[in-house]
Each structure stands twice: as structure tokens, then as C-alpha cells.
């Protein structure tokens, strides 16, 4: 399909409410301290948990001595793996076919395999008693040899993470249409280099938190948890616990940030659910920051070798990628899926590259399990292919924007099936890049760069034309790649007799603002104001089966479910109103809660219509009772947001410091429901992407302990963002919306690193690894200078 060429500025007015920069209705509550998080929920007869964790990356547990801990007043008990009989390991939910699966034990049995692994848990009548006793649990360990990186783990003779896995191999995934060697024969030259996508600690402001409450009277388990996907967690928890799913209620109230790690199922959750059932009392745990950095999943961690066969005009004929991915000590929920499917499928980005060979090898190591983190595989892919594009341009002396244009998939090729396995649904890449170039004042920037160079200042301009896919599609496709989830989302739309409406949604906001955006979507359909609509999420007893919030899917899939359900309720209201107005339903208009016949003959209020619907008064029997519709919106395929980002940096060649001077982002997420919140998503994503490029890594020490204080960027470390959008609506859902939550985190790292390399290319610097710490940059400058001297 050849998508219409529209810019947001002309296209913002999509509806009466959608397309408007409405302020978040939930903010009054959050900004006045009235958010209600799991940590705020304390139940009668509450017990408190404190986990005892391994300080070793790999060790045999010799003995757990609990006497001193048990002697602390208020301690109910100290529990180890033996006390959790009948509990399965926490299983992954996405297992690429052929993977060697090692789930996370609820509590370690005999061996610990990463720092922070749970060995025992203290339960006490107060959090203070639990903490006091926790430090008194004495665990004797016999340290074992360790392996921390994927490349080390895959070496012959590497130390084994799991005794029965001789090669530490979790899985190998290959894709692409092959023929790289052929491409190389036709090419003018080959460019090869290595890339590191470093491990990151996701770091939401609210850590994880759980309150597990088994009620012996009803034999129901109510499980409060700070989570992104409550229904999926219910299924996973019920399975591992052997608990009847219909009597398990998961409640995820306000959630203070997730970024991916809060969609996984964790050992602490399983342990506490089991102990609540055993003790028949509620058990509460709130994660400490030191636990968060060591035991909550990490992101990224790929070591890549890339080769491209290129013509001298910049056209890339073939790409060969070999990546080693570190999955950590065990497979977390999205296990072997994120590092393989989510990376490999996007390896060719927005480019028509005739030949590709992609291999990804996943290895177990003695580190915290790695799982989805904002972008989840697509940042790794985008970083690689976008670094390639700038490198090709620099090596060949071409302009990086022009080089991209020579390789773009063209609009008339859409939908375009990449040989790696993904399908790009829409995209006008040159148009979006041109807008970014215009917004940046690109020609002027190049002149500025040239002038600055004469004065000994090193400016650099870097590009990124990322793409990804969002939403999750047809369940059949998910099954094919071993992802044990559906791709749909649920919504219930209910208009009450007073004319106000409730929206129940299987998506779950952990900061995205669904209360506002989903109300805007429903309001346009129902003909009432968003303020008249309450959006409820996060309670599996109240909300039909849903999938939850991740993969930038809430608006495209969850929002579409709301639109479809609300549309059906509106149709029913029209039929009732038509009867009351004595006209045809097609002739009924609704505006601000008033129905009127198109010929202007009389009006009827939404209250009157809703009253008739819920009483059966004044309407024929055949119209039926109620104004409530449920939709499980199930997309056939995924949408492909994309964007063009440009970074301007200045590098101080004496100190190695990289200053990000400007950041220009043009994102295309299709139709935008709320431009204000869209901008917020872009800003947040960029901040995390810039964090990866310039500041962050997990910072393991020699013992495999992650740094306690990751260098997450604060606002004073970020420039003013220059954001804009193009709009190519997706045909994959009725909103035409693609998803935007991860875009910034995907687009920013390559743009910034490319800019820094562009600045230093003349000094002989050919590559830089993230994060671009001043020390690392300075070392690269000095090494390049030394090489030049030697030559």
C-alpha cells in the first residue's frame, strides 16, 4: 500500500478528542502524592519478607545457618528451597524452538549462579525484624569458577554455568537469505568491524514489589504486584505454583515505571505466593535498590561482528552478522526470543539489502538474567545497521544521509518482506529523513563543522534511521517463534445509565497515560467528553483476558480494542436513539452526549438512551439490554514505526568528553492519539537511549557484582530535544497508530555514537564502543594518534 504523505502538523486533528494534546487526567493524583502502589498496600496479619541473596557469581551452598535469625523477635521463619516442595522453577514464556531451557529457581538449590540469586527468605511480623534477621542468616559457600561474557562462555573449555550443559549454549538462531559471499564478489569492497551493545540496568524509579495474600476461607490467592502484564503473570504464576488459575487474582495498581523488566515472572513472586499459601497469611516484599540492580533483569549485552559488501556508490549488497548474546545464568520470561528474533529480524533496518546472513548465539553466563528492556532487541539491531551506514559513508567519503537514501526500501515496495523475516508495513524513509535534515539545518551544520575544525574544535554529526515493529500480531506467528502468548488485547466499554462510561483494558499503564489516551479514543466513538470516561486496568478479576503493556503495543492494539468496542456501543446507542427519535440509525448524529436526527427533527440525551438500554423501557425487545461491548482485538500483523534522528556532538580531544549539543528526532508512529504524550514518550526514550550511548553500563566488577549506582542520565545531562513527526498511517489497525514507546531508546544510541566517530574520523578514530565515557574516547584518540605515529 502506498501510504498518504502527511505531516503531523497538518494531520493532528484526527478526531474531536484524538489528535489533541490533552493533559494527563491522572496527573493530579500522581503529582499530589495520591498514587497507590503495591508498597502502599498493607493487609491485616501482614508478614514481611527479606531475601537472603548470593554475594557470589557462582558457588556451591554448603550450609544455611538460621539459628541467629530465628532468634530475632518477630521472626516467623526462614525458608530455603527445601521448604518450597512442589514448586517448579520459574519457566520462560518465550523459548525459541531448540533452546536449552534453564528456568530461574524460586530459591537456589545447592548452587548459586549469579550475584543476587535468592538463597533464603526471612518472614517476620515487621519489615524491621525481617531486615535484622536477614543479615543474621549465615550461608556458607564454596566458590566455583565463573564466566561472565558470552564470548568467554562459548570458548572451548569454558567453565560450565550448568553442569549438564557442556557448551553453555542456550540456542543458535540463523536467518537471512544467504549469499553474502556472492555479494562480496560483486562488491567494490568489504567493510568489517566489531560492535558491543553493552549490558544495561533498566532502573525504574519504583522497584519491584509484591504482596501475596492467600485467603483460606475462599481458597483464593490475591497477588498484588508492580507489573506490566497482570493476566500473563496470572497464567505463568498459576502454572508454576500448580494453583487453579480461576481462583488466582492478580492486581497491579499504580506502577512507577517498568521499561520491560516488570513484565517478567520472577523467583521472588513464586516464592512469596507459595509461602502465603503455606502460612495462610499475606506476605509483602518491596525491592531494595541493591536487589534491583542485581536480581531484576538486565538488558542488551551483545557482542557483534559485522561485515558488509558495498559498492563504491554506497549501495550495500550484502550483510553478514555474527552476534554472541549473553542471556545470563537462567532464561528469564522472554528467554531466547528477545536476543534472537527481536534482533535478527531487524538486522537490515529500513534498507533493501539483497543478501544477508545472520547468526545469533545465546550463551549462559554467571550473570543476572538478561531480558527485554525498552526496545528489547531492536536497539541492538538498529545500533548495528545504523553504525554500518555511517561507517560505509565515512569509509567511502560519501554523505551519510545520501548513502542511506541509496539503500532505503522505497514506498512503492511496501509492504516489504525483509529476507531476515520481518515485514515493514509502511514507511516513507526519504521523506522522514528530509524533514530531519531540514529541521537540523543540515547544510549549515556541515559548514559549522568545517569552520569549527579550522579552530581546532571537533563537531560531529550522526544519523540513525531506525525501524522496529510493534504491537505483536497474529497469535499463529507468535506460536511459530515459540512465544507462548497471544498478540491481541482486550477492552470492555460500558456506558452507564447516567451516560458516563467505563473502559476496562487489558493493557496496563506503568506511566504511559492510558487513562487519558484511551479515554480520548473512546470519547470520539461515544460522543462524550474524555472526562466522562474512567479507564480501569490492572485487576484480573475485573478485566477480561488481556496481554498487557510492552512492545509499544498499548495504543496500536489496546487502543484499537477500545475503539472497536466503543464503536459497537455507539452503534447500539444510535439504534436506540433512532427508535426514540423515530428515524434511521444512519441518520443519528451524536455530539457532547446529545443525539439528534440528521434532519434536525428533535434530540435525545445519552442519559435517556442509556436508561432505555439498561431498563428495556421505551424500546422494542429486539434491541436487547445493555450498553456494553467486549473486544479482543487481534491484529493480523505488526506495525513498523520508524524515524530519522540526527545528533550533533562536540568532542573535546584533550579530555575525551562528548557534549551532545543538539538532538533532532523525527519519528513516524502513524496516527498520533495525543501529541503531548507522544512527545513525552519520545523524550523518555531518548533519555534512555542517550544514557546507553554516553553513560550507562551494568559495571560488573571482577566478582560479577553489578555497580550499585548506574549512571542514568538526569535532566541536566540532556539537551533540549527537537522533536517532530511524519505520519504514515499503518493499515494493520483501525487507529492507523504504530507505537512509539521504545522509539527514542532504539534511535538514539547509533545517532550519538555515529556523531562522535564523525567528529574524530579525521584524527584516525574508526570506531568507539558505548558508553562513550571520556576515558574511553580519550584512549581511542590516543591509540589512533599512536597508530599514525607508527605509520
Amino acid at each position, binding site marked *: 500500500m502506498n501510504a498518504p504523505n502527511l505531516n503531523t502538523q497538518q494531520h493532528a486533528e484526527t478526531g474531536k478528542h484524538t489528535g489533541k494534546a490533552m493533559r494527563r487526567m491522572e496527573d493530579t493524583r500522581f503529582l499530589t502524592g495520591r498514587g497507590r502502589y503495591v508498597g502502599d498496600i498493607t493487609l491485616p496479619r501482614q508478614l514481611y519478607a527479606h531475601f537472603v541473596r548470593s554475594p557470589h557469581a557462582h558457588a556451591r551452598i554448603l550450609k544455611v545457618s538460621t539459628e541467629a535469625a530465628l532468634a530475632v523477635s518477630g521472626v516467623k521463619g526462614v525458608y530455603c528451597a527445601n521448604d518450597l516442595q512442589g514448586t517448579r522453577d520459574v519457566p520462560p514464556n518465550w523459548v525459541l524452538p531448540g533452546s536449552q531451557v534453564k528456568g530461574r529457581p524460586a530459591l537456589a538449590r545447592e548452587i548459586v549462579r549469579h550475584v543476587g540469586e535468592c538463597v533464603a527468605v526471612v518472614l517476620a511480623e515487621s519489615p*524491621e525484624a525481617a531486615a535484622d534477621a536477614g543479615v543474621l542468616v549465615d550461608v556458607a559457600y564454596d566458590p566455583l569458577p565463573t564466566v561472565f561474557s558470552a564470548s568467554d562462555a562459548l570458548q572451548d573449555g569454558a567453565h560450565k554455568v550448568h553442569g549438564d550443559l557442556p557448551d553453555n549454549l542456550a540456542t543458535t538462531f540463523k536467518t537471512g537469505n544467504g549469499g553474502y559471499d556472492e555479494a562480496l564478489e560483486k562488491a567494490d569492497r568489504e567493510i568489517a568491524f566489531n560492535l558491543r551493545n553493552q549490558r544495561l540496568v533498566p532502573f525504574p524509579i519504583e522497584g519491584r514489589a509484591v504482596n501475596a495474600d492467600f485467603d483460606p476461607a475462599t481458597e483464593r490467592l490475591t497477588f498484588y504486584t508492580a507489573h506490566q502484564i497482570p493476566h500473563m503473570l496470572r497464567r505463568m504464576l498459576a502454572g508454576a505454583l500448580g494453583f487453579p488459575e480461576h481462583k488466582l487474582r492478580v492486581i497491579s495498581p499504580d506502577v512507577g515505571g517498568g521499561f520491560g523488566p516488570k513484565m517478567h515472572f520472577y523467583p521472588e513472586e513464586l516464592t512469596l505466593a507459595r509461602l502465603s499459601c503455606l502460612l495462610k497469611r499475606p506476605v509483602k516484599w518491596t525491592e531494595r535498590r541493591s536487589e534491583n540492580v542485581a536480581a531484576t533483569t538486565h538488558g542488551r549485552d551483545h557482542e557483534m561482528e559485522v561485515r558488509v559488501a558495498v559498492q563504491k556508490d554506497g549501495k550495500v549488497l550484502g550483510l553478514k552478522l555474527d552476534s554472541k548474546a549473553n542471556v545470563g545464568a537462567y532464561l528469564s520470561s522472554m528467554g531466547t526470543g528477545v536476543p534472537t528474533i527481536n534482533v535478527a529480524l531487524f538486522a537490515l533496518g529500513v534498507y533493501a539489502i539483497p543478501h544477508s546472513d545472520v547468526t545469533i548465539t545465546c550463551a549462559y553466563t554467571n550473570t543476572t538474567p538478561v531480558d527485554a528492556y525498552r526496545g528489547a532487541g531492536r536497539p541492538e539491531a538498529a545500533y548495528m545497521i545504523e553504525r554500518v551506514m555511517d561507517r560505509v559513508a565515512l569509509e567511502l567519503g560519501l554523505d551519510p544521509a545520501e548513502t542511506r537514501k541509496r539503500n532505503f526500501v522505497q514506498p512503492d515496495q511496501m509492504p516489504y518482506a525483509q529476507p531476515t523475516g520481518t515485514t515493514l508495513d509502511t514507511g516513507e524513509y526519504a521523506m522522514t529523513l528530509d524533514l530531519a535534515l531540514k529541521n537540523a539545518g543540515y547544510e549549515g551544520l556541515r559548514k559549522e563543522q568545517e569552520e569549527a575544525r579550522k579552530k581546532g574544535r571537533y563537531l560531529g554529526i550522526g544519523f540513525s534511521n531506525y525501524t522496529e515493529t510493534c504491537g505483536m500480531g497474529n497469535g499463529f506467528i507468535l506460536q511459530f517463534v515459540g512465544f507462548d502468548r497471544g498478540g491481541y488485547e482486550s477492552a470492555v466499554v460500558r456506558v452507564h445509565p447516567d451516560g458516563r462510561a467505563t473502559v476496562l483494558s487489558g493493557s496496563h499503564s506503568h506511566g504511559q497515560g492510558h487513562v487519558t489516551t484511551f479515554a480520548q479514543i473512546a470519547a470520539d466513538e461515544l460522543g462524550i467528553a474524555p472526562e466522562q470516561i474512567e479507564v480501569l486496568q490492572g485487576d484480573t478479576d475485573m478485566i477480561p483476558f488481556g496481554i498487557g503493556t510492552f512492545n509499544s503495543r498499548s495504543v496500536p492494539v489496546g487502543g484499537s480494542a477500545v475503539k472497536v468496542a466503543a464503536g459497537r456501543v455507539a452503534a447500539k446507542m444510535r439504534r436506540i436513539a433512532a427508535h426514540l427519535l423515530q428515524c434511521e440509525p444512519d441518520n443519528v448524529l451524536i455530539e457532547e452526549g446529545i443525539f439528534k436526527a440528521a434532519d434536525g427533527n428533535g434530540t435525545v440525551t445519552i442519559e435517556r438512551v442509556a436508561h432505555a438500554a439498561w431498563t428495556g423501557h421505551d424500546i422494542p425487545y429486539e434491541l436487547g439490554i445493555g450498553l456494553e461491548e467486549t473486544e479482543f482485538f487481534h491484529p493480523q500483523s505488526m506495525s513498523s514505526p520508524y524515524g530519522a534522528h540526527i545528533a550533533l556532538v562536540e568532542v573535546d580531544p584533550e579530555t575525551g568528553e562528548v557534549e551532545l549539543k543538539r538532538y533532532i528526532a523525527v519519528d513516524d508512529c502513524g496516527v498520533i492519539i495525543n501529541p503531548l504524550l507522544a512527545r513525552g514518550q519520545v523524550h523518555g526514550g531518548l533519555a534512555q537511549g542517550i544514557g546507553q550511548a554516553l553513560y550507562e553500563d551494568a*559495571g560488573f566488577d571482577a566478582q560479577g557484582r553489578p555497580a550499585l549506582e548506574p549512571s542514568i542520565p538526569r535532566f541536566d545531562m540532556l539537551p533540549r530535544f527537537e522533536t517532530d513527526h511524519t505520519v504514515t498511517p499503518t493499515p494493520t489497525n483501525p487507529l492507523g497508530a504504530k507505537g512509539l514507546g521504545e522509539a527514542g531508546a532504539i534511535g538514539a544510541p547509533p545517532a550519538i555514537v555515529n556523531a562522535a566517530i564523525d567528529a574524530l574520523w579525521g584524527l584516525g578514530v574508526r570506531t568507539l564502543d558505548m558508553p562513550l565515557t571520556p*576515558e574511553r574516547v*580519550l584512549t581511542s584518540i590516543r591509540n589512533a594518534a599512536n597508530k599514525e605515529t607508527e605509520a
Partner: protein
Amino acid sequence: MIPAAFDYARPATLEEAASLLSQEGGAALLAGGQSLITELKQRRASPRAVIDLNAITELSAIEHGPDGVRIGAMVRQAELLRDATVQKRLPLLCETGAAAGDPMIRRLGTLAGALCEAEPGGDWVAAALALDAEVEIYGKDGTRRMSAADFVTGVKPAGGLKGEIVTAVHLPYQKEDSRSTYRKVKHNAVGWSIASAAISLEPGEGGACRKVRIAVSGAPSHPQRLPSLESALTGGPYEAGRIQTAIEEALQGLTFRGDHYASAGYRRTRLGILLSRTLQELLAA
């Protein structure tokens, strides 16, 4: 983030506080709490008792004299930075304060507390050293004063205090014609400095400096003055090569610290560049 249990006392007078301090082995003094509370919560400190100085009103005064100011130990950093005379007579202190911590920390933190903590990356300590501060100490034998340079030696507790309480910090005013600045390279993760310098120059005859005071923080093992650099720069002439050599010589005598974010070698390099650039700028002014 739950501290181990401790006794808590909130004396109303200095005498009472000193008496409690002498009774309680392993007691900690609580002023602004910006270091102690974190240490307690992370159980890096488990004192038997915490003696809270917040009710001792006599520690909260800013007293200006003809040549300098006496800043009570409980004067908040934010309050100090709002004082009009401090703003006028101690610009280096104010410039440092603006770079130290954040508004919430400065709202509670104290200058005396920052000197007692003497963090290796401390901002206030560098300024206090460069300003020739003195620390006033109260103990059972009365009150004594110690120069900041003797007080901050990298050994804890600062000043080697035992059963004594820091009651005030004395700062002589800067000369009206002095040129000073505080420059800091921030640690990306925690905001401490990885290299910083507090510099005050007093101009003399013909553009040469009569008096040079330079204190560095963040990069070396503890904040300290650089006497060899100071004397090399007293009197001029200020050729770039000579300044560079003097900086290198001064850095040779230091021990550098490093961490995951910035190694000792990088901190040394960065401090050298910071000193060189800042001195060139100040000397050219």
C-alpha cells in the same frame, strides 16, 4: 533500607550533647544527615546511639566580624548561600555551593557536616581549604580551632576527633580584588566530582599574583591544597609552559583514586587539564 536499631537522643545544649557523647561508646552525631542517614539505611554504619544536634539552637548562627564569618555547625548550606554578606564577601564559597549536591541536599546539609565527612569528592571541602577555613571544636577541655588543612587529612574521623563536637567553621573574607572560581568535572553516576579545583588569586604588582591558593578534590585520595603549585604561581611570570610544568610537578606528589566510572589515571589527566584551563582563564582575566 532499614537501619539496625540504635538509641536516639536530642539534647538541647552543647554541654548535654558532649556529655552524651562521652557516655556512649560508638555514638554518631546527626547534623544535616546527608551522609549519616544513608550510611544507617545501608547498614554501613551501625552506631549504638545517634545524638541529634538539631535542637541546639546556639549552633545555628551566622556571625559576621570585621575580617571574616563564623558559621555555626547547624547552619544549613542553603541558608549560608542566601546570606547577603556571604554572597558579597565569599564569592568562591557561593560558587562552590551552587555546584554542590542539589537544592534538597543543600536545604538540610551543613558546611560543618561536609567538612567532618570530608568526602574525597567533596565540593565544600575544596572551597574551605582554598579559603583558609578554620574549624572550631568543642570538647571537655574547652574550645579549640584547627585549620581545615589539618582537619582534612584523608584519615577518619576528620581532625582525629574523639568525644568532641565541631561547633563552627571560621572563614576569612576574600580580598575585594581577588579572583576566584570553583570548577568541577562531575561524576556521571553520583554527581560527586571526579576532578575539581577551588582557586583564589590575589593580584599584586604588574599582574603578578601576590597570593595563590589552590585546593583540589575528587581526583586525589582526599581534598587538599597544592602548595608547590601555589608557590610556583606566586609572583609570575605566567608562561604556559611554566604553568604546565608546575601543574605536572604538583600532581606527581598526589595519590589518585579511581572507580568503575573514572580510573585514577583518567582523574589525574582530567585534573591536570582542569587546572591548566582554569588557571589560564583566571590569569588572563
